[in-house]
């Protein structure tokens, strides 16, 4: 029979799994097990330091139908995320296109413009908290030196706090978008562009009909990454605003944190985490499907 051949093949396959087993076990321990545990907790009224009881779907009902603050945090996340992504892609694409030109001092610009890419969001939050300070901060300082009567409390005004958060995110992550799109542009063979130029295409036509379609893959990938990161955003918003005046900058992640670690409503925070997870996962799957179908 063939079994004499099959056995070593199988042991070899088992051996191959040994390479990945430690990682898989580790991820199960630090992610899957806590998530399963938290699913159980989400059906209870657990508060820290108090006995808990099973309350079925009550938490889910409260979050979905009674918790105005939760839905407002969803809206705030969207109000921060949508304009931030639009600005980051508009400015990032502009900078990438400019840096793709063969100009002198390109490397210098590229070095300076890439600097914020690896900055910790927490440090960005603290830095900008100082920059936004009404009296001694740099933002008002610049506005004053331009002749404005600026004494604006950027982070204390409900109408200004969201634009203030957006500005910090744009400052910090546009360079990342720029770098990825620039890499995409530089991967386009020069001959294509030259051929188009010989055929009499204008720069705008080349950009629209050659460059843009050829960096679609990069655009889609960086868009998905940015979208997920901006939904997950916590450190920067927390250090910058702590939720803003009257919770006007309270994103979903901040609201979950506040429930779990300030109000100590662990059961409810677990419920919110699950709803959040379901939202993020379905949004990602939906976008992956529709974007990649279009790109293909």
């Amino acid at each position, binding site marked *: 029979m063939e079994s004499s051949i099959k056995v070593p093949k199988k042991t070899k396959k088992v051996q191959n799994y040994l390479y990945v087993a430690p990682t898989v076990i580790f991820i199960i321990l630090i992610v899957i097990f806590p998530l399963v545990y938290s699913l159980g907790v989400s059906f209870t009224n657990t508060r820290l330091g108090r006995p808990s009881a099973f309350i079925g779907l009550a938490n889910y009902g409260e979050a979905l139908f009674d918790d105005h603050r939760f839905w407002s945090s969803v809206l705030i996340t969207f109000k921060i995320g949508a304009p931030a992504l639009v600005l980051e892609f508009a400015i990032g694409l502009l900078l990438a296109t400019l840096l793709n030109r063969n100009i002198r001092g390109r490397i210098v610009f590229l070095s300076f413009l890439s600097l914020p890419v690896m900055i910790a969001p927490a440090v960005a939050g603290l830095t*900008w908290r100082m920059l936004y300070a009404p009296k001694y901060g740099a933002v008002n300082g610049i506005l004053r030196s331009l002749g404005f009567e600026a004494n604006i409390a950027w982070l204390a005004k409900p109408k200004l706090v969201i634009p203030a958060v957006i500005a910090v995110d744009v400052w910090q992550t546009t360079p990342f978008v720029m770098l990825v799109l620039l890499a995409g542009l530089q991967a386009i063979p020069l001959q294509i562009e030259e051929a188009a130029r010989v055929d009499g295409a204008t720069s705008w036509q080349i950009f629209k009909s050659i460059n843009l379609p050829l960096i679609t893959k990069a655009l889609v990938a960086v868009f998905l990454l940015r979208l997920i990161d901006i939904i997950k955003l916590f*450190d920067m918003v927390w250090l910058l605003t702590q939720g803003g005046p009257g919770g006007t900058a309270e994103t979903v992640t901040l609201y979950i944190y506040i429930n*779990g670690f300030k109000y100590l409503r662990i059961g409810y925070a677990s419920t919110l985490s699950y709803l959040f997870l379901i939202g993020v996962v379905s949004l990602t799957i939906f976008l992956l499907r529709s974007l990649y179908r279009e790109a293909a």
Partner: protein
Amino acid sequence: MKLLSHRGKRHLVNAITYLILVIVTILMMIPIGWTLSTSLKTEGDYFAFPPKWIPSKPTLEHYAYLFFRTDGFRALKSTLTIAIFNTLIVMLLSIPTAYAIARFRVGGKNLSLWILSQRMLPPIAVAVPIFLLFVKARLVDTHVGLIIMYCLFNIPFAVWLLIGFFQDFPLEIEEAALIDGCSRPQALMLVVFPLLAPAIAVVALFVAVFAWNEFLFAFVLTRSKVKTWMILISSFQSPQNILWGEAAAAAIIGFLPGFIFVLSLRKYLVRGLTMGGIR
């Protein structure tokens, strides 16, 4: 009816390019420059009205204060301990995993996508149950706790980036080693590993910087014994009587690992930040 000659047009486009690049670069650099300047100012300077852009008497007193009068040294030590051990564990687990996925296609597409999906997970969703479990396991406020938790985002990152590097590695070299009598692990250790050392070092540095930058788990899972640099930074956030000089100095030190990384390894940035998705 052309308004400009071809050359004139090119000069105009160049001028606009430079103008935009210079303005954006200056706008991007102001926050960093202002923070650096604040960290070197004396007290009178940062409360000067209108604000001063260049310190009149530059001083390092805030940096000294940070290290000698507050928890600076302890925070630096904690953060480096966590970053180094986390990087070691992440690399030890990720290298064989990525190798097996790249070479033997272990688990097919599902396994690698499952590992990648961990990276998309919002940390706050895990933070709540992990906190409860850590209380039971007495891991709250320990270095070990954070070293373990930073694997959550660093392992998927490292595995995905390494898969790409292993896939790019020429199969022939490895097969030559196998024909010469090496076992698989030997070929990995003696042939593949040394040749990929620079790429692996880049991955390790990414991982270490991410560990340095992490805030949420450190914020939720530590109390008073363990304090990372990011937690030290957050202690300056109180809106009233903010310690400007110290806060700015702490921010500048917080920037440093990221800056050094960007300036020395820029060509790896795109590949790293997209986890090998774009090369």
